[in-house]
């Protein structure tokens, strides 16, 4: 009863499943192609490094990143933070750059029941408002800025 594709660990299983799921999202019109390796997207979506300062501003902006609706983090100037999700302090120590990128791009690939919105996916969504239909929540450049900032949240 030996199966050549049988995953030997939970991590291996995730990697197989992610690889299989890749073409659908990557081929979506208007989005850049990216490769998922394990539970990470190791390479920058744009080929360039993001800007940490711009990333911080996106994360803190309730109408752009929306992150603080659900998360809290090191933003002393922002009194209204969320309690629906883990604190962002220390995420740069907990996860690698590539792992952070996949979590922001499409957290549902790791946890199908998550409430964390897919920031760089346009397929598999229902009844999207016409003004944003076909558009990801953040652009590839913005994703890279956010990732560059999250990497700095070390403790």
């Amino acid at each position, binding site marked *: 009863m030996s199966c050549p594709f049988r995953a030997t660990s939970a991590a291996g299983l995730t990697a197989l499943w992610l690889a299989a799921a890749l073409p659908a999202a990557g081929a979506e019109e208007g989005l850049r192609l990216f490769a998922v390796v394990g539970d990470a997207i190791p390479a920058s979506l744009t080929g360039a490094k993001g800007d940490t300062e711009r990333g911080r501003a996106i994360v803190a902006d309730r109408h752009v990143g929306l992150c603080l609706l659900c998360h809290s983090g090191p933003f002393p100037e922002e009194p*209204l933070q969320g309690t629906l999700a883990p604190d962002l302090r220390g995420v740069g120590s907990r996860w690698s750059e590539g792992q952070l990128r996949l979590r922001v791009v499409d957290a549902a690939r790791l946890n199908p029941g998550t409430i964390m919105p897919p920031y760089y996916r346009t397929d598999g969504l229902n009844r999207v*408002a016409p003004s944003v239909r076909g558009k990801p929540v953040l652009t590839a450049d913005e994703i890279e800025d956010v990732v560059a900032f999250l990497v700095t949240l070390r403790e």
Partner: protein
Amino acid sequence: MLRTAQLIVAVSLAVALAASEEIPLSERHSSYQDMSAETRAMQDHDAENPGMLWVLDGEALWQTKAGKAAIACAGCHGDAETSMKGVAARYPAYDARRGTAIDLAGRINVCRTDHQQSPELARESRDLLALTALVARQSHGLPIDSDEARLRPFIDAGRAIFTARQGQLDLACAHCHDANRGKKLAGITLSQGHPTGYPLYRLEWQTLGSLQRRLRNCLIGMRAEPYAYGAPEYIALEAYLMWRARGMPLESPAVRP
């Protein structure tokens, strides 16, 4: 009728959340309890409650002859305080003649067109809100009494919408109002999403608004396409929300931050 049948098919195909837990009956409470003492006092005292201005307008409209029939609401129903007592607690109701569920504002418009022979009042217009507030006021403090037997397909359709992900943010109503109730979305405590106060005065709106206006706000927040006012999807959601809040007292006209 056809629209309703299509709706029920469409929503049953929608992806429902795998495990959405409904709130146990004993744990339900109105977001009134999460409000500041000042906002609660504003709701509790008629002289301070801005929603009472709409109720007063509604009383005047109730007595005013309208339409080709030149008859007032009072001409058929008499004193609203007695004839309308408990009515809002039973809405949405099943309208056997039309074979569909109808909300209170829709029912008022049926009286306008069929009995007064005057044009429908626009959704969210001052006059329709005023008449709805007047009728809802007559159920203040009475328990919600959902007509579960006849509304079952509408309640089920509403639950399917409530638990389906939609919009660019891929969220469902149940994510905020079942699974994460009591937690903070930015600074706001997420309520259980009960329909007990409507129409109500929202300080943020600086005016009175219907439940459908509130749901529209939630849908816009999810970056989903809002339904058209009066759409069967809103009636189904309301039928589900009222069933979910069955037995809870009506508070209209409530006040919310």
